[in-house]
């Protein structure tokens, strides 16, 4: 090989044409799907580490709940958890509508998924009231509030995203890219539900098992 200093760009030889490729794709074939996975990985790691912090503090404490606090109440949290699991029914239905490119179903389903989190947030508000500990009472209280605040943030941001997508779906023409967006959003809701289950076990059952 010799130095190519000062040489003009190389000749090009056209060996094929890509213009017949489709202009969109869904699922793991879609670029945005991978971005979505990246952000799930970040948030999932955040939850895992917050859970690790909770467990670490638990192992350092002689009593859990610490400071004579009562374990968090089971009624509202049970209702919330059941609601999260049930919300998967409409969520998976929207997912199917988006995959089948069913415009009416996708619009109605996304609208429903914009309302359902509001009901869940009402239950979440009651959960906060029945935790039996404030964040400033002890490290135990701080850890419980940390997990619940993180998950509530998750809930609010995902709700906001669904409202924006829903508004857009109703006011504009829906194309393949929008179906892919709805699919990603639906996968995200599943992720929010899945994140909740270990957090629920930690916040509500670890103090009872300890």
């Amino acid at each position: 090989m010799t130095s190519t200093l000062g040489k003009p760009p190389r000749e090009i030889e056209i060996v094929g044409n890509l213009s017949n490729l489709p202009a969109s794709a869904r699922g793991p074939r879609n670029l945005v799907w991978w971005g979505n996975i990246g952000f799930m990985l970040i948030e999932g790691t955040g939850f895992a580490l917050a859970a690790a912090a909770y467990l670490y503090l638990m192992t350092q404490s002689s009593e859990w709940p610490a400071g004579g606090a009562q374990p968090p109440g089971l009624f509202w949290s049970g209702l919330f958890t059941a609601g999260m699991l049930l919300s998967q029914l409409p969520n998976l239905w929207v997912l199917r509508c988006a995959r089948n490119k069913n415009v009416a179903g996708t619009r109605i389903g996304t609208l429903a998924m914009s309302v359902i989190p509001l009901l869940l947030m009402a239950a979440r508000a009651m959960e906060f009231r029945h935790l039996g500990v404030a964040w400033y009472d002890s490290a135990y209280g701080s850890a419980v509030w940390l997990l619940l605040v993180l998950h509530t943030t998750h809930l609010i941001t995902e709700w906001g995203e669904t409202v924006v997508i829903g508004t857009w779906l109703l006011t504009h023409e829906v194309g393949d890219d929008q179906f892919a967006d709805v699919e990603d959003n639906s996968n995200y809701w599943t992720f929010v539900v899945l994140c909740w289950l270990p957090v629920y076990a930690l916040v509500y059952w670890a103090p009872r098992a300890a």
Partner: protein
Amino acid sequence: MTPDPARMDALDATWKDKPGLWGFLTTVDHKRIAARYIVTALLLMFLAGVLALDMRWQLSVAENTRMGPQLYNESFSLHGSTMLFLVSVPVMEAMALWLVPLMLGTRNMAFPRLSAFSYWLYLGGVLTLWIAHALDITPDLGWFEYPPLSGPSYSPGHRADIWAQMITFTEVAALAASVNVAATILKMRPPGMTLARMPVFLWAMLIASLMTILSMPAIMLVTSMLISDRLVSTHFFAPAAGGDVLLFQHLFWFFGHPEVYIIFIPATGFVSSIVETFSRRPLFGHNVLVLAILAIAALAFGLWVHHMFAVGLPRLGNDFYTGASMAIALPAGLQIFCWIASIWSGRVVLHTPMLWIIGFLATFVIGGLSGVMTASASLDLQLTDTYFVVAHFHYVLVGGAMFPLFGAFCYWYPKATGRLMSERWGRVAFALIVGGFNLGFFPMHVLGLMGMPRRVYTYPAEMGWEWLNQVATAGSVIAVLGGLVFVGNALASYWRGAPSGPDPWGGSTLEWACPSPPPAWNFAYTPRVSSLTPMWEDASRIAVFDGIAVDRREVLVTSVTDAVPVYRQKSASPSIWPLVAAAAVSAMFIASIFTPWAIAAGLLPIGAALTGWFWPTRARATSGPLRARS
């Protein structure tokens, strides 16, 4: 045939930014964004270097009075925080943002607006730390601010908050860049570039991005916990209320140790590219190099406790982490041998970039060996918090990451500017920096063994540390002079350097196929790849595909393992929304130092900015309850 001028004009019309300030603020061109990332980071490196010189001045004479303890504390805290959070990690991401699309033969990153958002948020972190410094609210507790010292009882005021929130800025920016880099490398490789044919550089950037994604949430979490202890009276790190100060250290180093490799692994990508080109042969042991990087990445998550040997953990834990820390020397050693074998069996050309690699190999091996020493828990107990550790981490970070970075800068400078840097002044800068660095930092090993603790603002004359400190100071001055020569050479060459043409070094990878400097659209056609060294396949021509649009922003998306073309993806156009979103997030971060309500209040503007960002451009609905009615 070469691309015809009409096609290039059409591509220009599609991809060029608007002129002037509006174009500057709205650009989503990965090269412009990366360039401002790199310039900002280099400017900060200069400021951190000035701080270092000032500290060396203070330490050059026993019982010197240039600095008092508070100013010294602020100086090393600002130096360390700037170098780790605002220079080393961001500059590596910036190199990825600049190079990854070029090396993939594509026209932009996967998420162009996310690149812009990442830079603006990073700039927010830079301004937070340095404007606070101008206002005399400089963090003063080192680059890791351990509680209880950083807790509400011992650190009133906002110095610790500024440090903690600066981290939130830079980590969100780093996470955004990492998702972008990973998605681009996984889904936008040119046809034929299967995972098995992916250059080591791209592997390094992919793995460093995944490490960032898995480690940076730890630092964001722990600094948020620290802020909430300080602001809303949580007790994560307050032992009296059941908290634990070691929890901070565990979470900090769960991030902090991988971070060292997040800085080092991209550097191994630079080294691999430069060694291949200047040895005039495909890299020896490509698969070994890739597997070694993967092994380093995996092991890096299992060593954080070696930063905590002195805190009194169980003996078995110390033994495990000693073993794990020593084990990482094996893949690092394999890499070194692969590079040496490539050089040994190649036809080496010693241009300036390659000189930096020689400097890297020598310096990094010394740092690696002192690392094996400090990996031993028993020896570490003697050496921790002495100048031996200062010497060690400067050898691995400056020798292991900055020297390859300087080499990379010289190597890709002609691609970025279309001009060559002066070889003569490049050699002068190399000699001054590498010589000055070794003169400056080698004596610190000895000072550490003599017992000189780090983070002391002065020492009594009778300790006998003075002359070694003076040697160290002289070395630092020489290295900084070399840095000025380096920058001077880069600036002068920008205007006066000899034209480089597209491929001055005879490089092996695709970035050398596009013009220098690359136009806004990078490549007129999509290249096809059939080996690890696509530019060495056929010296006269490049096989390409036509069919990706020239009249609208479009990129090719391919499959993850085999890079089979899948579909044509619309690429985002310039937008002001990433800047607006970053400004809204910055306002929330800064205000949340003072009141927790800022988080609630900030949600609305951030949500509005993100909605503007992602709002698609399509016609109004003609069906459904909210359809457009004429």
